[in-house]
């Protein structure tokens, strides 16, 4: 971990060696040497601070680029909205006001398909030439983080909207509304994170949309099972929401983000 950070910060080799020598022999350090150690830690602190600030700036710029693209090519945004609206309307026509179990199942399946539609294009829309340009100006970690943030915000918005339309048309059957909104947000976050990373993989393969479905469905079943379990408790007035499941989902999200940060640089090289 230490070495990884140093690599990211582009730490000069000389300083790194001195630092590690001090680090490993820190037991033998006398009182006089303490100020050297202190200075080194200061150096580490400032270097990493500079690094993180510049990284945050880059991520924000890339995020703004995605937002701008979305604002300019509004057809995709409205396309997803239309998709949500018409799907829920068809469901309403078909089953009117379903019981809670059906409601819950349909809601999560809808979230899954919204996510595939909203997130899949994030990497597919970038043409090869544009990817090459990003490759030359941005670091892969910043790039993938910007994509993850953008897609999760997009997906949060979409799932809130779909929840609104869903409860308007198919009947508001949720006794615990606020916890359910929380579960929806958590769920859409996990869905979008997983699918963003899979979209990055699929974008490199031929017939990407098909590959994306093949890769995504088995992987996402686990999260969907957990989410349905959670939302079932939101439907039953007597059950409390199990915190351990929420934490498990959050840990899985963190795992996906970490894997994306570690693995995306390898996908990126072409």
């Amino acid at each position, binding site marked *: 971990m230490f070495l990884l950070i140093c690599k990211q910060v582009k730490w000069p080799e000389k300083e790194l060696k001195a630092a590690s020598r001090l680090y490993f022999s820190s037991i033998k350090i006398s009182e006089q040497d303490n100020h050297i150690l202190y200075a080194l830690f200061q150096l580490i602190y400032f270097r990493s601070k500079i690094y993180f600030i510049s990284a945050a700036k880059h991520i924000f710029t890339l995020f703004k680029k995605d937002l701008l693209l979305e604002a300019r090519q509004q057809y995709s945004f409205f396309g997803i909205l239309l998709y949500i609206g018409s799907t829920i309307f068809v469901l309403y026509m078909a089953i009117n006001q379903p019981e809670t179990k059906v409601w819950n199942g349909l809601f999560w399946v809808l979230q899954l398909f919204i996510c595939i539609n909203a997130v899949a294009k994030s990497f597919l829309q970038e043409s090869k030439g544009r990817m090459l340009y990003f490759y030359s100006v941005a670091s892969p970690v910043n790039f993938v983080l910007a994509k993850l943030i953008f897609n999760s915000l997009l997906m949060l918005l979409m799932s809130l909207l779909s929840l609104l339309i869903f409860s308007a048309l198919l009947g508001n059957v949720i006794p615990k509304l606020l916890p359910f909104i929380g579960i929806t947000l958590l769920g859409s976050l996990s869905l979008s994170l997983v699918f963003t*990373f899979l979209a990055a*993989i699929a974008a*490199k*393969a*031929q*017939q990407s949309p098909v*590959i994306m479905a*093949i*890769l995504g*469905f*088995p*992987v996402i*079943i*686990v999260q969907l*099972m*957990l989410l349905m*379990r959670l939302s079932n408790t939101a439907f039953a007035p007597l059950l409390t929401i199990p915190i351990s*499941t929420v934490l*498990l989902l959050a840990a*899985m999200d963190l*795992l996906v983000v970490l*894997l994306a940060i570690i*693995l995306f640089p*390898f*996908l990126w*090289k*072409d």
Partner: protein
Amino acid sequence: MYKSWWKITGVVLVIYTCTAGFLLDVPQLPALGETIRNLYFHVCMWFAMMILFSISMVNAIRYLRTFDLKYDIYARQFAVVGIIFGILGYATGAIWMSFTWADPNNPTFDSFSTVARDPKLIGAAIALLVYFAYLVLRDSVNDMDKRARISSVYNIFAYAMLFPSIWIIPRLLPSLHPGGENGNPALDTKDIDGSMRMVFYPAIIGWTLIGVWITTLKIRINLLKEKKLSSL
């Protein structure tokens, strides 16, 4: 006889498993009876699968560190043999299940739909599906270096996703399958009889070694194919 000692060990251990597993005395438990001997086969298959998938993941990491195509072939072949062991685990599990879980008054086929809903079975099915997806992804890319890189990345991702699907989720849900909230019965030394341990541990090692041997043969064939392709 170059480095053949572990192959001989594997064969000897599997022969030992098949003879001692069927001949030695086992504790007679209600509902289990003589089917408890399936422990030497069913559980070992999943052990071998998990170990082979782990080796596959390690080789994927090695590929990403060195960009040597050899490791990509290793990773793929270990995943394929891992899948085969998973399917064998299912088959042995189905035999076991038809004696212990199925309603004796009903034919096995009728109680299948209730039995197939067990969370452990679904979790294992998800794990196998993830690795099938790995094979599909790998075959969908034509360029050799690109294919190796993308599939290695997915392999690592799949391995990370394997853990919740076979180790965490099935434990949270109620299941007929042993090994719920209170750990694995076969691994707990207080739970498993001493005479069974005499066969069970060698069986795990034996099956795994056989799996690795099969994989090395497949790897050698594929390396030769690769060599032939590149020499053309």
